[in-house]
C-alpha cells in the first residue's frame, strides 16, 4: 500500500476510509450524494414510462378504467402494505447500524429481505393469474370480455407488465444487494462512524417502495369513468 511507500502516515485511519476522502463524514456525504444522483436518473427512467402511461390514460380513459378493474385490488393492497413494512424494517436497520447494534441490524435486514420476498411471491401469483386469463400482451392476449376496448386493454396490460416487471426487477436486484449487506453486517463492518453502505441500501430500497406507492393507484385503483 501507499502507506508503506510514504512511510510517514501521520495517524491511523478507519479501515473503511478511502484514501481520497478527508474523513468518514466527507466520505458518507459523497456516497449519499452519488446515490441521489443515481436515483435522479431512476426517477426520470420510471417517469418517462409513467408519462407514456398518462398520455394513453388521457386518450383512452374508459379502457384504462376497465383494465384497472381486472386487477386484484386485494393482492395489490396487501403488497403495498408488505412493501411499506419492508421500508420500515430497512429504516430500522439503518438506525441499528447508526447506534452500533449488530444483532438488530441483522434482524431488520433479514426482515426486509423476507417482506421483499413476500412481495415478489404475491406478484408472481398475480402474474400467473393474468397469464391464465389471457392478459399477457401479444399472441397470448385472448381476453375479449369487452371487444370494443380489448385492444386498448391490451395496451394497458403492456404498461402493467412493463412497469410492474421493471419494479420487480428492481426488487430482485435489491434482494441481492440485501444479501451482500447482511453478509457485511454479519462480519460487523458497520457502526456509528461507518454505515454508508446500509444507508445507501436503504435509499435504494425506499426508492423502489416509492415507485410502488405510485404504481398501486395507477394500475389497480382507477375509478370507473362516468358519462354525463
Amino acid at each position, binding site marked *: 500500500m501507499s502507506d508503506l511507500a510514504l512511510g510517514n502516515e501521520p*495517524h*491511523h*485511519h*478507519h*479501515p473503511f476510509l478511502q484514501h481520497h476522502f*478527508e*474523513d*468518514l*463524514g466527507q466520505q*458518507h*456525504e459523497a456516497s*449519499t*450524494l452519488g446515490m*441521489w*444522483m443515481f*436515483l*435522479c436518473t431512476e*426517477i*426520470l427512467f420510471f*417517469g*418517462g414510462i409513467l*408519462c407514456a402511461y*398518462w*398520455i394513453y390514460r*388521457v386518450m383512452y380513459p374508459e379502457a384504462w378504467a376497465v383494465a384497472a378493474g381486472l386487477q386484484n*385490488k386485494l393482492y395489490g*393492497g396487501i403488497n*403495498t*402494505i408488505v412493501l*411499506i*413494512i419492508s*421500508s*420500515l424494517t*430497512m*429504516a*430500522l436497520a*439503518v*438506525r441499528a447500524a*447508526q*447506534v452500533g447494534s449488530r444483532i438488530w441490524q441483522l434482524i431488520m435486514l433479514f426482515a426486509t429481505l423476507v417482506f421483499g420476498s413476500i412481495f415478489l411471491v404475491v406478484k408472481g401469483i398475480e402474474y400467473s393469474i393474468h397469464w391464465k386469463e389471457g392478459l399477457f400482451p401479444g399472441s397470448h392476449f385472448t381476453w375479449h370480455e369487452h371487444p370494443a376496448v380489448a385492444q386498448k386493454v391490451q395496451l394497458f396490460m403492456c404498461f402493467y407488465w412493463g412497469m410492474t416487471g421493471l419494479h420487480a426487477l428492481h426488487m430482485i436486484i435489491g434482494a441481492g444487494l440485501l444479501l451482500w449487506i447482511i453478509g457485511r453486517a454479519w462480519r460487523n463492518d458497520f457502526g*456509528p*462512524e461507518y*454505515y454508508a453502505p446500509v*444507508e445507501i441500501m*436503504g*435509499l435504494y430500497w*425506499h*426508492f423502489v*417502495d*416509492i415507485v410502488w*406507492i*405510485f404504481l*398501486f*393507484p*395507477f394500475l389497480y*385503483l*382507477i*375509478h370507473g369513468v*362516468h358519462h354525463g
Partner: protein
Amino acid sequence: MADQHPQLEHAPHFHVTPLYIYFAVFFALAIGTLLTWYASTIDLHEWNTPIALIIATIKAVLVILFFMHVKYSTRLTWVVVIGSFLWLGVLFVLTFSDYLTRGWLMK
C-alpha cells in the same frame, strides 16, 4: 482491530432519528394506503384521480424526508432531490402541453 476507533476529533456525527418518528411515518403510510383504496371505491367525479395523486405524493414525500433522511441531509442533497423532481416536472409539463392541446386548433 485494537486501533479501530482512533481520530475521534474527526469522527462524523450523524443524525439518529428517534424510533417514534419511524413508526409514526409507517402508520401514516399505512393509513394513506387504506385511504387511497377507500377513495377509489367511492364516486368523487373528477376528483378521484387528483385525490389518488395527492395521497401518493404525500406518502412519497414522507418516505423521502424521513426514511431516506433527506430532512437531515446537506443542502447539496436537497438540491439534487428537488432537481430530480424539477426535471420530472419538465418532462410532464412539456409533453402534456403538446398532447393535451393538439385538438385545440381543430375546434
